């Protein structure tokens, strides 16, 4: 008998839909599909009936109506005569401002605290442990409220800075004034203003900003090219040319030249009458939210950094030393690439959390997208469904963009296994 008996496929019976593994998953998926569709139909049908009963419709036309409310802090020009759409855009920009500022500051705080917690110094390590545990185990809302209360209750009113012998004084060489209504910080000004690029809809970007962005990007690209050249030379000759001064120069010199060309300088706030003018008066809601988010997220980032450093076994640095690498190169070539693989994914999800937590701005009256679109606009127009759906969509898009970035990174540094 040379040929193997192949069992003929048994004829199909209905019971095979559940007992045969080939069909069972199909059966199950079809059932799930039907149930999900039924649920969706039920929800949509209910919504339609409810809207009809209330005499409402599902229409985003209200976004083009006059908003009629003021926003204390607007990164783009906005008046109460503008549309709800523009108010929502202002809110979105405010969300982005506090998120980005928070991410930057939280990273700095987190790295310092995480490294300090591993320090040999007993006192510093204990202090950082207290910081991390205190912030991780208490609701963020509490920190926001406390920081905000510090600003509104403890800080002096602006007129306390008046007179020859004022009750309060400015900090940072007379550049910043902390008052109970706002924080006055210096603004940037240019003696040689190149004007602005008009993007339409009264949104403008200064040419100077564009010039700095171009200078930085170009400097970064040139730096990459210098590094690639150094690598080529090293591969051919075995000696790596010294490049740090060239890298530093291409990164900084164009910006310094631009600063000199535009005559960029700081204008500190000065007290005129009862208020500070000349500088930028930042609403305390923003400052309190930013500080609280920074300290809270910083505590989580500290733990991530600590875990990332601890995850690299001592053998790795010992092996690098045995190969004759200097400590700096050991850090750059051996420790950091491995530690970053552990650190970056949770770090980015902390950024995501920070962005979502910035919606707690309603606790301090900072008008982010929750405060404009999901707050005043919703209350004024009575369009709960549209406002909340739109707001959730905005948050969802922001998160998906950040997650997509994280997935790209993960795919690049992933360990290959079978």
């Amino acid at each position: 008998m040379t040929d193997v008996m192949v069992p003929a496929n048994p004829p199909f019976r209905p019971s095979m839909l559940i007992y045969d593994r080939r069909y069972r998953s199909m059966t199950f998926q079809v059932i799930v599909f039907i149930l999900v569709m039924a649920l969706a139909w039920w929800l949509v049908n209910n919504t339609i009936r409810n809207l009809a009963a209330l005499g409402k419709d599902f229409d985003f036309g209200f976004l083009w109506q006059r908003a009629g409310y003021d926003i204390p802090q607007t990164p783009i020009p906005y008046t109460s005569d503008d549309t709800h759409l523009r108010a929502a855009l202002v809110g979105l920009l405010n969300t982005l401002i506090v998120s980005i500022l928070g991410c930057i500051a939280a990273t700095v705080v987190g790295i310092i605290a995480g490294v300090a917690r591993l320090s040999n110094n007993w006192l510093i390590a204990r202090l950082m442990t207290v910081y991390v545990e205190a912030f991780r185990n208490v609701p963020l809302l509490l920190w926001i409220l406390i920081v905000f209360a510090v600003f509104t209750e403890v800080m002096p009113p602006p007129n306390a800075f008046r007179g020859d012998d004022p009750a309060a004084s400015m900090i940072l060489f007379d550049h910043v004034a902390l008052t109970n209504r706002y924080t006055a910080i210096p603004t940037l000004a240019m003696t040689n203003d190149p004007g602005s690029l008009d993007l339409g809809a009264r949104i403008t970007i200064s040419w100077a900003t564009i010039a700095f962005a171009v200078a930085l990007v170009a400097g970064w690209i040139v730096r990459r090219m210098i590094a690639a050249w150094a690598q080529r030379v090293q591969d051919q000759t075995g000696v790596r040319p010294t490049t740090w001064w060239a890298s530093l120069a291409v990164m900084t010199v164009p910006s310094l030249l631009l600063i000199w060309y535009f005559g960029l300088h700081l204008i500190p706030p000065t007290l005129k009458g009862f208020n500070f003018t000349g500088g930028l008066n930042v609403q305390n809601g923003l400052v309190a939210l930013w500080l609280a988010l920074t300290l809270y997220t910083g505590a989580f980032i500290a733990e991530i950094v600590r875990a990332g450093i601890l995850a690299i076994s001592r053998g790795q640095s010992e092996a690098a030393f045995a190969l004759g690498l200097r400590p700096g190169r050991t850090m750059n070539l051996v420790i950091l690439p491995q530690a970053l693989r552990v650190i970056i994914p949770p770090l980015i999800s902390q950024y995501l959390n920070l962005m979502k937590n910035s919606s707690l701005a309603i606790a301090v009256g900072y008008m982010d997208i929750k405060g404009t679109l999901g707050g005043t606009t919703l209350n004024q127009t009575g369009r709960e469904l549209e406002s909340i759906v739109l707001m959730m969509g905005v948050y969802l898009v922001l998160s998906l963009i950040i997650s997509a970035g994280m997935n790209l990174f993960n795919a690049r540094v992933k360990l290959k296994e079978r």
Partner: protein
Amino acid sequence: MSETHAQTVPFVRDTMLPPAAPPVREAGAVRWLRQNLFSGPLNTVLTILGVLIVWFLVSHFWDWFAHSVWNADSLSDCRRIIAETWGEGARGACWAVVRERWNQYVYGFYPPELYWRPTMAFGLLFVALAPVLFSESVMIRRVVLALATVLTLWLMAVMGAPAAWLVFAAAVLVGALLISERQPSWLLVFSILYPLMGVWFLWGGSAWGPVMVLVGPVLGWIAWRLLGRASALVATVAALVVPLVWWIVFAGDAARDAESIVSLAIPAVASDRFGGFLLSITIGVAGIAMSLPLGIVLALARRSDMFLVKTLAVIFIEFIRGVPLIALLFVASLLLNYFLPPGTTFDIILRVIIMVTLFSAAYMAEVIRGGLAALPKGQYEAADALGLDYWKAQRLIVLPQALKISIPGIVSTFIGMFKDTTLVTFVGLYDPLKSMSDAVRASTSWKGIYWEPYIFVGFIFFLICFGMSRYSMYLERRLARDHR
């Protein structure tokens, strides 16, 4: 030998020298200081910096803490006492607000004569948790249960609980102590019944409601047994459909009819009377209990081979994780009425619990998925090689290990969720942190008191969350099966 040696060498020491004391700088406190605080220039600078920070904090806040007042009727009273005791211009903490408003912070606006009911529910919670949480060590279980028994009964007696309920609580608590000595797993029956009992104790009303809810699974089981002989497929479908039909169509009427025949009602308490830590703990415990199973199901679905199941799980998880909890809470408070049949209303606390559960289940699913992915592939392959089917492999081999790996993540999700219960303030519920402190400040006697309520609430949250994280560390050590 030794004689020749003695002739060539003038002196040989034949006793050991007593060991010399180490130099002062290498011993005791000095050595510790040198090693831990002043081991180099950088460390010395850091130490000085740290001392300065500590000194700054102590010098700014010590007098405030030292001048604490615990007995006063109002903030002005507090300030008067501080000024009288420590002189004009002295600062001091007025903890009297915590003392005076303690009940409000703990029970919200719950009727004071019924305070014993949440207390009893909280005490019995430890019985329900005993087989799940404290099953690792006999000693800990004994201590926890004994403490819960004594404290619950004492507090209930102080709060004026009726004698019948005192006997009931004593019977359950002492019974649990005795049963757990013999066979702790029997307490699982109580753990399964506890959610319904807890709801009844907290909200009151007729006991027939929870009983009729319980009838659903019983009917399902009966249907399964009856039809099991005919066809397994029909039996499975019936076991799922019968309880659903019972709950949706019959349970409400059955509970009303039964109530009209035999009344089993205790005074009902509306949801708007809930507040303070009672509200936080109710939402937190319910969310924790429901989000773990839901998270496991979602994690398994996301790793499933079935395309549709996987896609749905991904959409659900990414959607929930992509929006802030506040947005979901607003959906619960504003939009849910749109999605339900016209005229349906249901309790705001229940809506919030559902949203909080869904929110943390999505995070839980990602944590557990991490645990599943971290298991070596060999474990899955070994389960297949043993011929286990999918559910057996998950239940016996994969999940026990994956859940053990994910304990830190699971507990930190729990902690995050418990902290997030403070956000219910934005949908008009009385959380202890913002709404309750605002309510306290709204009275004329405590107008303008900021720090003490915040610090008090923060301290309680810290105790609970820190306790949870320490417990998870302990559990991790207990469950570690490698490198011992």
